[in-house]
C-alpha cells in the first residue's frame, strides 16, 4: 500500500516519507458501510426517543426519514464500490502524502484538549505547538519558537487585553 514517490523526496526542508496509495473502490465500500452504520444508529436510536403520540410528525419522524435517505445513499455507494472492485475497473488511487506525519498531526490534535485540561491554555498551547510545527514540516528551531511565542502573545493581547475574555 505504501511506496516511495516523487512527493517523498527531500524538498523544502521536509523529510522524505513514502506516499500511501489506497484503492478508491475499497474506500468507497468502507465509506458506504460506515455511513450505513450511521443510518442504522439513527434508525434504531429513534426507537428510544420519547413518543409524543404524533406518529410521523413526532420527534422521531424526521430522524427516521433522514436514516432512510442516508441508508439508501450509503448502500448505493457501497454497491458502487463493490461493483468497481469486482469489475476490476482502473480507478485512480487515493493518495495520502506524508501519511505518518498526517497520523501524528491527528494524534497531537486529539491530545490537545487533555493538555488543555491538565496544564491550562498557555502552557498547553506552547507545548503542543512546538511538536505540531515540527510534524507539519517546519525544520527551523528559530521559526518554530518564534511562531509559537508570537501566537501566544497574540492570543494574550487579543483575548485578555482587547476582548477581556480570560482563557483557561
Amino acid at each position: 500500500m505504501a511506496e516511495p514517490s516523487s512527493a517523498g523526496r527531500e524538498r523544502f526542508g521536509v523529510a522524505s516519507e513514502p506516499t500511501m496509495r489506497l484503492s478508491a473502490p475499497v474506500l468507497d465500500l468502507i465509506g458506504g458501510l460506515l455511513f450505513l452504520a450511521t443510518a442504522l444508529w439513527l434508525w434504531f436510536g429513534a426507537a428510544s426517543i420519547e413518543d409524543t403520540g404524533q406518529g410521523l410528525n413526532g420527534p422521531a419522524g424526521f430522524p427516521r426519514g433522514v436514516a432512510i435517505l442516508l441508508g439508501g445513499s450509503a448502500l448505493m455507494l457501497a454497491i458502487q464500490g463493490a461493483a468497481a472492485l469486482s469489475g476490476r475497473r482502473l480507478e485512480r488511487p487515493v493518495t495520502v502524502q506524508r501519511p505518518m506525519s498526517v497520523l501524528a498531526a491527528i494524534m497531537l490534535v486529539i491530545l490537545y484538549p487533555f493538555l488543555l485540561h491538565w496544564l491550562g491554555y498557555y502552557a498547553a498551547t506552547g507545548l503542543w505547538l512546538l511538536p505540531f510545527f515540527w510534524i507539519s514540516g517546519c525544520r527551523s528551531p528559530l521559526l518554530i519558537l518564534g511562531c509559537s511565542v508570537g501566537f501566544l502573545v497574540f492570543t494574550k493581547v487579543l483575548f485578555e487585553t482587547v476582548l477581556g475574555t480570560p482563557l483557561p
Partner: protein
Amino acid sequence: MLTGFGVALSHMISWHVLAGLIVGILVGYLVGAIPGLTSSIGIALMVPFTFALSPVVSIVMLVTLYMATEYAGAIPAILMNTPGIPAAAVTALDGYPMRLRGEAGTALTMSILSAAFGSFVSTALLIVTSTSIASVALAFGPAEYFAIAVLGLSLVSSLSGSSMLKGFIGLFFGLGIGVIGTDPLDGVSRYVFTDGLLSGVTFLPALIGLFAMSSVFSMVEHAAEAPEALKSLPKISGQFGLMRPYLGTLTRSTLVGYLVSVIPGHGAVISAVVSYGLQKRLSKRPETFGHGNPEGLVAAETAANASVPGALAPMLSLGIPGSASTAVLIGALTLHGVQPGPLLFDKNPEIPFSIFIAMAVTMPFMVALGLGGARLWVRVTQVPKSVIAGLVAAMCMLGSYASQNDVFSIYITIFFGVIGYAMKKIHVEPAPIVLALVLGYLTESNFRRALLSSGGEYGVFVHPVPMLCLVAAVAVLVMPMIPRPGAKKALAVS
C-alpha cells in the same frame, strides 16, 4: 428603506465599525492570497473573535472579509498562475499570460478595478432586490418556509463536487448530525449520549472542524510542496482610463455575476465561468482568449466579485444560503442572536443595511489596498505550508474553545476535522454537511409546524408558493446535471 439606512448609519458611526471593516479587508486579503484557504475557512476562523463585538461590527467585519477574499484570490492567480480561491482559476486563464507578456501591472490594475465595478453595481442591485423579496416573503407561513428550506437544501447539487451521490450522503449525514439534541417542537432529547450534546452539536466548532481543521491535515500532507517561486514584482497604479474600452464587458459581466449567484448554489466559480464563456462568444477576437486577452480577465473578475452581493440576496431576504460562505455567515449571525430571513428587515434593520453600507464603503479601501499592496499580498504565498498549518491549527483550537467557553467544543472540532479530512479523501465535500447543519432545523421545525397547523393535511404544501419553491428546488437539483457547452469550452482554453 431610508429609515433602514438611517438606523444602520446610527450604529455604524463609530471607530469600532471602521476598525472592523479594515481588519476584515486585511484578513480577507491574507486569506485570499493563500492558496487553499477560502472565504468560508476565513469566515469560520474569524467568527469566534467577533463574540465580544456587537452584531453590526461583527457582520461588517465578516462581509468585508468575504469580499476581500473573493478579490485577493486573483493576485496569486495573475502573478503565479496559482488561484488563491477556486473562482480565480478563470481569472488566471488570461491574467497569467498577460503577466508572462510583461503586463502584470496592467493585469492587476484591471482586476482590482473590475472587481470594484462588479461589486459596487451588484451591491446596488442587492439593495433593490433583497428588500423587495423580503417584503413579499413576510406573508409566508411554515409551509412556505419549509419549501424555501428545501430549496436551500437542493443547492447540494452544485456543492457536491465530483459525485452527486456523495453530495447527498454529505447532506443526509449533516441532517442526521443536526437532529442530535433537543427536539425543536416537543423539547424531547434525541441521541444525547453525553451532557455536552444536550443543546445539540454546536454549529461553529463543527464548522471550524469541517473547513479549517480538515484543511490543516491537508496542509501537513502537502507540506513538502514548495510554493511557486516569485520572479519579479510589478508596480501597479490607478489608471482608471484603462477600463474605458471595457465598459460593455463590465456591465454585462456584473449582471451575469449577480443574476447567476442569486440562484442558491451558483456562486463565484459558475458566475465567472458563465461570464467568461459569454464574453468569448461576443468577442471580436475569441481566439485570443486564454492567451492574455484583457476582456477575459475583466469578464471573469467582474462576475466573480459581483457574485458576492448576489449570494447575499437569498441569505438576507429568505434566510437560505447562496453559497458555502453565506452558509457560514448565517451561522455567524445566528450565534449573535440574529436570524436572517424576511423578518430581519423589520426586527434588525441595522444588520442588512449595515451590510449594504459596508459593501459600498469597502470598495475604496479595497481598491487602495489592491493597488498599493499587491506586492505585499503576493509575498504571503511564499509562507511555507508547515507554518500556516501550525498557526491555523492553533487558531482552530482557540476559536472553538472561545465560541462556547467549553473544552467539549474542541472535541467537536477535532471530530469534524478528522471526519472532514477523511471525507475529502473519498470526495465527500464539507459544504453539503454545513448546508444541512444550517437548514436542517428550519426544515424539520417548519415541516412539523405546517402539518400541525393543517391538522396533518399534506395539502398545505400544494399551495402556490410552496409548490413554486419545491419545483424550483427540483430545477436547482437537475440544472447542474445538464452539460454547459460554453462553460466547458471556456475552461478548455486553459
